[in-house]
């Protein structure tokens, strides 16, 4: 549920990537999981283009021509959609960000240069919302990750009874709609009467006011996020099952203990999956919206503690109708996400291991 659809899809991509590699390539390639599609697809495409000598268009056979016409027919929905709903909007956001566009009085729009970006630097809410996002990410990513990996390792135990039952049921909360989930947890974490605090009360701890305390709201959000851990668990599980047994057998003969096997075999072998999930979680933190909005009715409370970057943007653009300013915020977000992605990808050479390629 909560770590959003992107995570849901990560599992699928992993599956298909493995499917594809499995059926077409050598056995050793199986463990090159997901990020392959992000890196090599693009790289390979570029390489292929260089390798192929360009034929003159005039010499094409009728069959080729017909094939190309069909190809453009098939691709046309995407091209129209890409232009209308992606490319033009991105450029339009940039254009809007230099204006004071307000949808209520669109005819009064004027070009104001970089003033929106100037406002952005002095607007304390921007700093606050960035801090909220970063604080949440710093807490949520390691905790969620450790939890997901732990669960995947446990569920991966060969001798466990009812393995598929566990997998199914741990996945189940991911199916519950965000709004319903948020309402459940609002009830469960209710100060006096919610049963989390009743439970803590039984062991003599006075539970905090989870959702109304600027301190406890983050653990609360992380806790709620853990509920949707099913996807992370399943992708990591898929990664774990892709590690060939021979490696463990060889390590055992060499006298490696369980911890060593985990650090020197399991972790490097699943590092592509880890990398992929990390990228998604990081981007996910900057996309965080639904849960914060539903739990606190879009107020960003308590005292702006849930004013995530996205929520701040939404409020400016759609509550205050400051769409020019909202566009500037959106572009800053785009740049932040781009920089983070590039940093992650460039760091990946150092710690992500693709079997069959040797260390890059």
């Amino acid at each position, binding site marked *: 549920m909560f770590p959003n659809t992107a995570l849901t899809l990560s599992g699928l991509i992993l599956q298909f990537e493995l*499917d594809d590699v499995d059926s077409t390539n050598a056995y050793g390639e199986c463990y090159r999981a997901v990020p392959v599609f992000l890196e090599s697809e693009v790289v390979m495409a570029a390489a292929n283009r260089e390798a192929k000598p360009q034929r003159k268009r005039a010499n094409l056979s009728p069959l080729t021509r017909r094939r190309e016409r069909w190809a453009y027919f098939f691709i046309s929905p995407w091209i129209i959609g890409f232009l209308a709903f992606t490319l033009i909007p991105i450029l339009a956001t940039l254009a809007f960000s230099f204006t004071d566009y307000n949808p209520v009085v669109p005819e009064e729009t004027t070009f104001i240069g970089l003033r929106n970006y100037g406002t952005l630097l002095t607007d304390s809410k921007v700093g606050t919302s960035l801090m909220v996002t970063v604080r949440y990410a710093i807490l949520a990513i390691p905790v969620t990750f450790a939890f997901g990996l732990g669960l995947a390792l446990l569920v991966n135990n060969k001798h466990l009874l009812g393995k598929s039952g566990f997998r199914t049921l741990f996945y189940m909360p991911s199916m519950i709609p965000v709004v319903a989930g948020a309402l459940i947890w609002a009830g469960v974490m209710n100060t006096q009467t919610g049963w989390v605090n009743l439970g803590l009360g039984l062991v003599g701890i006075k539970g905090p006011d989870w959702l109304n305390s600027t301190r406890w709201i983050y653990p609360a959000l992380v806790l709620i996020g853990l509920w949707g851990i099913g996807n992370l668990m399943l992708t990591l599980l898929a990664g774990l099952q892709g590690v060939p047994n021979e490696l463990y057998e060889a390590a055992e003969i060499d006298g490696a203990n369980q911890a060593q096997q985990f650090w020197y075999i399991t972790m490097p072998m699943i590092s592509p999956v880890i990398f992929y999930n990390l990228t998604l979680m990081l981007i996910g933190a900057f996309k965080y919206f639904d849960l914060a909005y539903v739990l606190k009715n879009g107020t960003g409370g308590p005292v702006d503690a849930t004013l995530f970057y996205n929520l701040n943007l939404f409020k400016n653009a759609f509550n205050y109708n400051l769409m020019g300013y909202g566009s500037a915020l959106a572009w800053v977000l785009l740049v932040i996400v781009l920089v983070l992605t590039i940093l992650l990808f460039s760091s990946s050479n150092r710690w992500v291991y693709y079997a069959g390629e040797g260390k890059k």
Partner: protein
Amino acid sequence: MTTKERESNFLSGTSKFRLWMYQHSKTLRQIGLVVLQIALTVFMFTFLIPTLWMVVSSLKASTEIFSHPIVWIPKDPQWRNYVRAFQELPLERFAWNSFVVVVGAVVGTVISSALVGFSFARLRWPGRDFLFSLVVATLLLPGVVLLIPRFVIFRNLDWINTYLPLIVPFWLGGSPFYIFLMRQFIRGLPKELDDAALIDGANRFQIFARIILPLCKPVIATVTVFSLLEHYNAFLEPLIYLNSMDMWTLPIGIRGLNDAYAANWELVFAASTVMMIPMVLLFIFAQRYFVRGIATTGLKG
């Protein structure tokens, strides 16, 4: 003295312990397993209890919901809560809106991603690799960047407060993830099928519709199930594009209910339960495509 005992006399304390561990490793492992089994089961229940609590609470009288100790079986199940939830809010209208949006968007997603995926996977044409890298790039694009201009576009088209902004983009290949999935799957199908059909005089569309599409059932099922979940839960976009109550989808409507009836938890929970039911059913019937789809089929053991 058995050999084992004689050996152990020569060993130091820690080594003795390790030997003992070794001799009893089977039993120890079994004990460990039992502990793990119990721990996981307990943990799993804590995972599921919040949902169960909500469903049970939706049948309680409002005084019972937060009572001490927790009431697990309501004394007098209040089925009326559901009737009241439907009376207080046009839940059936929300459900209908959700239905239209979800069906429209899912059908569009499946058709357009299959067409586009086929073109990327099977046909060679200039610019293909570049365009495919664009598809991959849009995967990582944060959606909010597109939000404001899209809103302006839809407003100028007079589409605000209609289902169209939530459906049309998905007919135009609006889901790069699914295009990617389709392409990967189609690439794995034997190319000889296409060639044979081509020799028999089929055109590309016939190849797509008669040969490739029927073989794509597994990936179509996966795309359907996941895009269904995605569109049913969609929150931000409906929130922006649908402002009048009679157009609200379930998530927006139930949030509205929570706003207006914050004290009436039993109504909120009843409505949430209603909203959850289709997804739980989907999960039960399409479990294969969720869990096994993600975890095992691609890995062959």
